[in-house]
């Protein structure tokens, strides 16, 4: 039994996750994004090697994420974080591609009085709980989320503790 299983497959014996476009560079991702969403994508920038930043309008977010996953092979959403500023909420998606290992920092903004964006949990299953966490701690509403409930705090908790106006 042990001999069949072998001991530890060396790297390269298993292929990397196939990316749809193959090896992509930062520029190609940006060009593809700009081609697909010429008006919605603003303020794109290469931060350092392998890390990109792009801002996107709230209304195009869901379609953009679908595009990223299906066309550009960004299969993994690393982190969804919400940041509160004086005049707006920013929701930051860190999206990774297994094939080329690029990290895309996708930022979308919501106004303070209407903190809601489309849920991307149907695109990436891993986004489900992270969106719930953002809702729990920051109070961002995600439209079309399958189960938008509190996850870390008790379900009868009244506040969203990460907001700046919440004091202890």
């Amino acid at each position, binding site marked *: 039994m042990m001999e069949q299983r072998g001991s530890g497959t060396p790297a390269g014996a298993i292929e*990397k996750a196939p990316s749809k476009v193959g090896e992509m560079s930062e520029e190609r991702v940006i060009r593809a994004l700009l081609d697909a969403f010429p008006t919605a994508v603003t303020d794109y920038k290469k931060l350092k090697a*392998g890390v990109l930043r792009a801002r996107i309008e709230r209304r195009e977010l869901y379609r953009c994420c679908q595009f990223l996953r299906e066309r550009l092979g960004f299969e993994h959403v*690393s982190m969804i974080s919400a940041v509160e500023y004086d005049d707006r909420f920013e929701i*930051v998606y*860190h999206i990774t591609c*297994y094939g080329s290992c690029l990290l895309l920092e996708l930022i979308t903004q919501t106004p303070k009085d209407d903190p809601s964006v489309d849920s991307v949990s149907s695109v990436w299953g891993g*986004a489900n709980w992270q969106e719930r966490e953002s809702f729990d701690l920051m109070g961002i509403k995600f439209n079309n989320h399958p189960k938008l409930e509190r996850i*870390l705090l008790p379900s009868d908790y009244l506040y969203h503790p990460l907001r700046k106006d919440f004091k202890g």
Partner: protein
Amino acid sequence: MGPQHPMTHGLWNLRIKVDGETIVDAEPEMGYLHRGIEKLCENRTYTQIIPLADRLCYGSSLTWSHLYCLTVEDLMGLEVPERAEYIRVAAIEMQRIASHLMWLAAYAADLGTLAGFIYTMRDREVFIDLLQALSGSRLTYNFPRIGGVAHDVPPNFERDSLRACTYMEKKLDEYDQLFEGSKVFMMRNEGVGILKKELAMNLGVTGPPLRASGVNYDLRKDQPYSVYPELDFQAISMPDADCYARYKVRMDEMRESCKIIRQAVQKMPKGKWRIVAPRNGPVGTGIGRVEDPRGEGMMYVVGNGTPKPYRLKIRSPIFVTVSAAKQMLVGYKVADVVAIMGGLDMCIGEADR
């Protein structure tokens, strides 16, 4: 049915609906250890957060303080001296072995073999001792600093590390005999908790569970940080996607870690081990990503020019991995819950933050 505290892995609640002994539905419930670290960080200065980051995950605290320092260095644009990088890498890999051994101990205890628990706990002490000599503490080290590490290595560190690696490699073979030689262990593990490759990728599972599903994605290789590109090691992955594959990936990772420690302590250059970091962080953002023993650890810091960060977001690998519990559990027996969830290496401290 909900175990209020399923023995060894801290506080979380898994609601399982069973039909006889077969699981038909599962819903993990988190948050019993939510301490609000992200909020606390907004009231601490950059240096004061290092101990807090240590206490994120009790299994591998050094990884998290290291990740925090990486993130803030990215924010401040600091270049860390090379000696500090090597010390960090050696320490992280020791921490990784200690963490994996902790996992193995808990896993063995879950599966009911006390021998595995006791032996791994005994051998974990070797690496805890090394880290203690390095930093002065057993579990929460408070060792990395923004711009380097707190101390230089103690005398005889190289000799002790090499000795520990040799000892560990011998012991790993012994564990293989203890676990894989046991028919019962294989019966409990093979073909249990299968998480298909596509599902694992979609659900955001990272770390050993992902690599056990056949995706060779290791941040140390794929998006190298620190001095990993200069070291010779392999990223381990297995195609079987069951509990045994997860076990095997971790065991082989320990072997690779021994190799890394060896190279790191031998290649360690002379020089400074710390540079002074500015007190105030600049306006801007910083990202850090490391390969935690449990998966992809990530931090995102927003600075606003004051000594305190404006926002610090922590990505916990276990928090995302646990959300895949339902897909892994449904269809198996109640007794498999411990094998499957134990195979994920739960660490509630970082998941609940």
